[in-house]
């Protein structure tokens, strides 16, 4: 397994290096879908130069990173490109091993439950085999490397601690806690995932466009209701998914990416990198076609409407915001679809795949 991973890493590093030196670098680093005020490299540089001049970097509402970042990049500013690439590579490796361990855990648990006869008799096709799970870690590493490299490496800093200024790590600690209780040797895995999201996290996922500075980081009451969404789901999800902490973490990361202020492509890429882990849920997804279409259409319309608003001067911000909202809706529906698929599979595992109603006809599962 090491050779394909190394190949993936080599290709990723090459593509990043090529992109850094191409003319695309400047173009991409200006795009609003990729750069946000929370994660812009230009602002980090601005903060560093302010520090060098002896002025506090936080005077003036430009710099929004933590002091740790300032001091870290104070020494690494000349090697910024290398730092980004190494961090990305480390993230990919960490994810690879994390998912590999997770697969082992899943397989062990499955075997245990089979022996304990917890599963219904006719669910043979739902049981996951080592063969199909073999390439999942590689796919995750692949998906993590490539979309992010195209967009994020040029413009954002690969540290998501600043992006968690408003959305702290607390939503991620319940899954971490649950997982640790369950499985001591897997606490390392969980730490990996938590740290990955922090250390590598590409900034935000959603496309809430630029709010006024007062609304952004200030505790404006209207925006508070949006941010609270990030926390609302933690406890109910923790109760429902207490036996599946990794899935809980996946949903939580996705929820953070959706409800974050200043989302960018990087956050979306982060949770989408985990899709291969849940490949077996594909047959239970109900709206995957419509949702994929929504997400692709919205992604394509972002630059078009931005162009119309800013350059052609004919549309206005409402068009752009509308596409942002549609993209959010698509993401929310996608996550809820995955959640539904997961629950449905669990139900089938314990109650059998071919359910019949009392009069012998095929039963329909309805989510209440």
């Amino acid at each position, binding site marked *: 397994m090491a050779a394909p991973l190394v190949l993936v890493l080599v290709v990723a590093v090459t593509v990043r290096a090529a992109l850094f030196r191409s003319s695309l670098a400047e173009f991409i680093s200006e795009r609003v879908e990729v750069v946000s005020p929370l994660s812009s490299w230009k602002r980090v540089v601005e903060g560093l130069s302010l520090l060098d001049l002896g002025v506090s970097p936080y005077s003036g509402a430009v710099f929004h990173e933590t002091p740790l970042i300032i001091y870290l990049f104070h020494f690494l500013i000349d090697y910024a490109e290398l730092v980004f690439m190494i961090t990305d590579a480390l993230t990919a490796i960490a994810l690879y091993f994390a998912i590999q361990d997770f697969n082992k855990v899943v397989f062990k648990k499955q075997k245990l439950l089979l022996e304990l006869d917890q599963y219904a008799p006719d669910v043979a096709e739902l049981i996951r085999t080592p063969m199909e799970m073999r390439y999942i870690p590689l796919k995750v590493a692949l998906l993590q490397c490539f979309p992010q490299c195209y967009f994020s490496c040029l413009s954002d800093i690969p540290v998501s601690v600043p992006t968690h200024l408003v959305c702290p790590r607390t939503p991620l600690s319940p899954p971490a806690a649950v997982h640790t209780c369950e499985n001591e040797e897997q606490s390392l895995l969980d730490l990996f995932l938590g740290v990955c999201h922090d250390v590598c996290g590409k900034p935000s996922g959603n496309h809430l466009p630029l709010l006024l500075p007062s609304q952004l980081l200030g505790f404006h009451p209207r925006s508070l209701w949006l941010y609270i969404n990030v926390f609302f789901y933690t406890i109910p999800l923790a109760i429902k998914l207490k036996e599946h902490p990794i899935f809980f973490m996946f949903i939580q990361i996705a929820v953070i990416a959706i409800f974050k202020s200043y989302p960018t492509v990087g956050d979306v890429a982060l949770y989408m990198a985990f899709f291969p882990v849940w490949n077996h849920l594909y047959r239970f997804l*109900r709206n995957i076609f419509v949702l994929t279409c929504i997400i692709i259409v919205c992604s394509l319309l972002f630059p078009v409407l931005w162009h119309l608003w800013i350059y052609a001067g004919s549309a206005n911000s409402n068009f752009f915001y509308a596409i942002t909202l549609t993209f959010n809706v698509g993401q929310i529906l996608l996550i809820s679809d995955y959640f539904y698929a997961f629950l449905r599979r669990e139900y089938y595992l314990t109650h059998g795949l071919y359910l019949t109603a009392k009069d012998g006809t095929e039963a329909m599962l309805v989510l209440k």
Partner: protein
Amino acid sequence: MGLLSDPVRRRALARLVLRLNAPLCVLSYVAGIAWFLALVFPPLTQRTYMSENAMGSTMVEEQFAGGDRARAFARDFAAHRKKSGALPVAWLERTMRSVGLEVYTQSFSRKLPFPDETHERYMVSGTNVYGILRAPRAASTESLVLTVPCGSDSTNSQAVGLLLALAAHFRGQIYWAKDIVFLVTEHDLLGTEAWLEAYHDVNVTGMQSSPLQGRAGAIQAAVALELSSDVVTSLDVAVEGLNGQLPNLDLLNLFQTFCQKGGLLCTLQGKLQPEDWTSLDGPLQGLQTLLLMVLRQASGRPHGSHGLFLRYRVEALTLRGINSFRQYKYDLVAVGKALEGMFRKLNHLLERLHQSFFLYLLPGLSRFVSIGLYMPAVGFLLLVLGLKALELWMQLHEAGMGLEEPGGAPGPSVPLPPSQAMGLALYVLPVLGQHVATQHFPVAEAEAVVLTLLAIYAAGLALPHNTHRPLSYRVVSTQAPDRGWMALKLVALIYLALQLGCIALTNFSLGFLLATTMVPTAALAKPHGPRTLYAALLVLTSPAATLLGSLFLWRELQEAPLSLAEGWQLFLAALAQGVLEHHTYGALLFPLLSLGLYPCWLLFWNVLFWK
């Protein structure tokens, strides 16, 4: 979200989509076309009105009386120009200085990618001359531009004369709050592009130009003037700009107001506007005007110097003087007064023109259709593609688990890279390979480019025979032998819908035109059934054939129909112009068609010839 999660309703919806798919598609398509045709009738078309308060509430008293002076300047200019053969730069500088402007020049040069047959130029170099009238008491933060493009084929000397006379008149007034730039460009659009790029300090088209010595602030509005005779019977206005961009409707309203005030006849596309919209005649002529505007906007050409200003968010119009056989003629004083009035009103602007519509269609000079009312037409057309895609997805799901993974079986995605590669070849090879072509064949460079374009286009038709060979070695699933082409068609439909949607947002006319032709055949394409008929239909609705058809339609609407041979010549010239305009002004029609729509069309061609 009941619809998406409730199984009963989902099943009902699925049945509806699957059973009634064909009638729904036909209905949607007809609704789209009918909606478009209904745009000329009164509830959907409204009278134009002035939206900007700063331009509406005050009336000005025009005092321009420099008709003789204008004619004298024009005669001098024409004489000097004939003597020197190019723009008489020294004379212009002297005259502008004597009138009281700050004069600057700018030289530019450009080597076109291949010789331009229609304008007969290849290495172009020239000089722009412009004079700035500084506002007496303002800070030079904003400016207006009056430009006269002088090309080798259109001398435009009366316009230069009028420009100078107006400059002299304006110089004596004290009420100017914005600077006015009087610009005379050489090689018409190329010179204008060079000036604009240097003014805004960008370089988007690879023009080499000397930097500007004098600037006048952010340009709020511009008027381009083209006159070919001492007297005019009417003033014609052109609004369509580069890539189908349009100026703010208020500028058009302004022009119309002043024409009406001075009793000057104003025309759109050379024809007078019908007054009576209640009977059928008015709307019918409106339909003709609307279709012509759609065709002009879809071509993406800048129909006048103003078209290049629009890219920099400067609202601009081109005014052309027409001298027809009417009895009543207006002299330069009338035209000058109209321009003076327009500039005085523009002088009152406090901010850029933003109140009125930027996206509209004109069935007539005093009638418009706003975007909210014409967008459903293209929405209905794209709905057909959506319905067809949904039906295919459901059929694939029934056939067997749909696609196992988002990547799908390798089968359906095999034609994708070759089609895209053909598109890339179509975009890159003609211009790159023109020298090689001229060495081996006895053709000129422009012809080489066009013939290479056509050759690569036709070569794409042979694609299915090459991409299907690797597939024959793959095990075809016996349960659903149709799965391959259905998956490919699904991908192609979504691709086409996405492209047409994005195009329709930026340039409605192009999106609508392409949707009208490509949507029905895209929905119909399948390997079973009368293959030759479908193949003929598909070829007739390919992007190149649409271009050819729209050329014939355009001339038909202008009441100057073409014969087949003339049409073909015009088609070849249009292809060359399209490639040239992409390289010189950044027009997007050529890349859109070659890199976007042609590969998509090739996918449908592959679906049709699926084995």
